[in-house]
């Protein structure tokens, strides 16, 4: 049966921009960056949270033909830019300190740290429009 979640995927508007954001601003580490000429230069790009080596986030460019027709690609691009693409949840030991540090690096927050019964959480976006939660859980 299923054993473990190993990869999750987010669409990104631009892989170079995303890689810089996830590593330089969010402090993640590069896991894989492999371009495959036989697959039309498909680029398998993944990052992960340091210390959590068994889960990676794949930063996927939105493909055109033969994967998606141009109209579908444009629709996904627009939905991503509208913030309609879902997101990921992260935990931290000190959300207020993380908020200040990330904000200082230019990360765009939708919600400053807010106390909730389950802990303190905050919300931010990546340059593509993906939404993230950062929580300090009780």
């Amino acid at each position: 049966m299923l054993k473990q979640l190993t990869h999750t995927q987010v669409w990104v508007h631009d892989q170079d921009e995303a890689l810089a954001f996830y590593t330089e601003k969010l402090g993640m580490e590069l896991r894989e960056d492999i371009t495959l000429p036989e697959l039309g230069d498909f680029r398998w790009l993944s990052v992960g949270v340091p210390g959590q080596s068994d889960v990676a986030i794949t930063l996927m460019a939105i493909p055109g033909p033969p994967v998606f027709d141009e109209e579908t690609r444009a629709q996904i691009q627009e939905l991503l830019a509208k913030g309609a693409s879902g997101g990921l949840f992260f935990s931290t030991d000190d959300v207020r300190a993380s908020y200040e540090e990330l904000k200082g690096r230019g990360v765009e927050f939708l919600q400053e740290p807010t106390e909730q019964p389950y802990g303190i959480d905050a919300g931010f976006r990546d340059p593509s429009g993906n939404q993230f939660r950062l929580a300090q859980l009780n």
Partner: protein
Amino acid sequence: MASTHPVRHLLRAKDLIDARYRDELDVATLANVALLSPAHFSREFRRAFGEPPHQYLLTRRLERAAALLRNTDRSVADICLLVGLKSVGSFTTSFGRTFGMSPTAYRAAHAPALSRARVPTCVLQAYARPQSSMFGEDGRGRRG
């Protein structure tokens, strides 16, 4: 690098409403974030998100007010100011039209959602925001 999708700039303005609904936010400020002229901005915002920016701002404030009514014991007047609205009378009217009851009755009728499920704030905010376009009391948001 691929240039930024134009709608991404509009999302930045929508995010600014979610982050700073407590403040005075006029259309000019929001348009500036979206890199558009105020007239163009309101039209494009509506096209992208299905409602004009001043309405999104008002419904965000009403959603936050409803959450404060459910989850705190702050007074109605306090809550009105906390969500960025200035007139308690207008707030009470807008709230009544949107939720079908007064703020006080709403508070009495709803136990905090978080006492039942550990849903994150983003889910609460996204799903609890009222959809009504029936109100018009918040004239401040229509500037510009």
